């Protein structure tokens, strides 16, 4: 698989080192993270077994790169998505499918210990709205990782939705750029929402149950340049909007 990123040898080595240390540490941090969500915060993923079977079946359909694209409402969504899709021990033993995350530097990686924690947990901090060259460097790292068979999670709207719904007017162009630049990249759209999640927040309500829906597809475009990336980003966003509509339609039928 070709690597479109153009990273230097040193940058590639740094990512390799991070992945391997993170893999070793995963025996601790993945169960600890799952324990925290399940028992300390009381979270539940609805139909988790069925969801995980679907996820693994989707992965078996092709060996190509997968970019996970999710909606975003709380600061722990990335952990919830990883837990929902992989569970605890499957994730430890199938570490390549534990997604790399791109947390906002100001929220998660501003100090020494938090910086170490994000490094150990497959995270590459990003400053949203920062210098374009810096953002580009991060995106190239993700391109490299995907082309090496890893997976990454990116939030379709960049940050948490301020309306509580998928905001198509603030779609992260970087998401389309990554998907368009990695040959054969499929987008795994994930729609996650707590039953008691009205709008965006720091954390979901303690004890909440989560609806999770997934859908995989390969975006296409006959255009080139930035328009191709934008087409990809739009297609992913539209898919998430449809998944959200399905969620609210089901919820209305239940009530």
């Amino acid at each position, binding site marked *: 698989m070709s690597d479109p990123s153009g990273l230097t040898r040193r940058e590639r080595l740094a990512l390799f080192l991070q992945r391997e240390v993170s893999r070793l540490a995963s025996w601790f941090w993945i169960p600890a993270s799952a324990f925290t969500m399940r028992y300390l915060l009381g979270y539940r993923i609805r139909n988790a077994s069925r969801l995980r079977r679907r996820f693994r079946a989707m992965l078996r359909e092709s060996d190509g790169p997968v970019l996970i694209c999710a909606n975003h409402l709380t600061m722990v969504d990335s952990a919830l998505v990883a837990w929902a899709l992989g569970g605890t021990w499957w994730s430890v033993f199938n570490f390549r499918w534990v997604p790399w995350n791109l947390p906002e530097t100001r929220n998660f990686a501003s100090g020494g210990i938090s910086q170490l924690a994000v490094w150990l947990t497959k995270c590459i901090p990003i400053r*949203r*709205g920062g*210098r*374009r*060259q810096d*953002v*580009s460097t991060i995106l190239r790292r993700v391109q490299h990782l995907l082309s090496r068979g890893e997976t990454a999670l990116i939030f379709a709207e*960049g940050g948490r939705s301020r309306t509580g719904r998928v905001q198509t*007017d*603030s*779609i*992260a*162009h970087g998401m389309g*750029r990554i998907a368009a*630049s990695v040959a054969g990249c499929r987008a795994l759209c994930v729609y996650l929402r707590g039953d008691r999640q009205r709008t965006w927040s720091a954390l979901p309500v303690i004890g909440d149950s989560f609806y999770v829906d997934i859908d995989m597809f390969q975006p296409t475009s006959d255009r*080139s*340049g*930035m*328009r191709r*990336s*934008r087409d990809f980003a739009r297609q992913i966003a539209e898919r998430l909007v449809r998944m959200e509509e399905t969620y609210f339609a089901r919820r209305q039928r239940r009530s």
Partner: protein
Amino acid sequence: MTREEILAKVVEIVRPFAKNKDALETAGPETNILEDLKVNSARLVDVILEFEDEFDIEVEDEDADSVNTIGDAVDLIEAKIG
């Protein structure tokens, strides 16, 4: 097309996306599009796509990475239109 003409067109294209309209009135080559004009980073892509339409050029994502200021945009457009 002269550099000044390109600059004037760039400012007009950025205008609808800029939240800081006051900064726009004194905008020059050194004006930072995101920080000074307060253009949403997600909308910067739309701004650059407008450049494509206006100047009949094609911009790659990598080219767009160099656009931080109005002057950077003018440099990019100048290079593209030759």
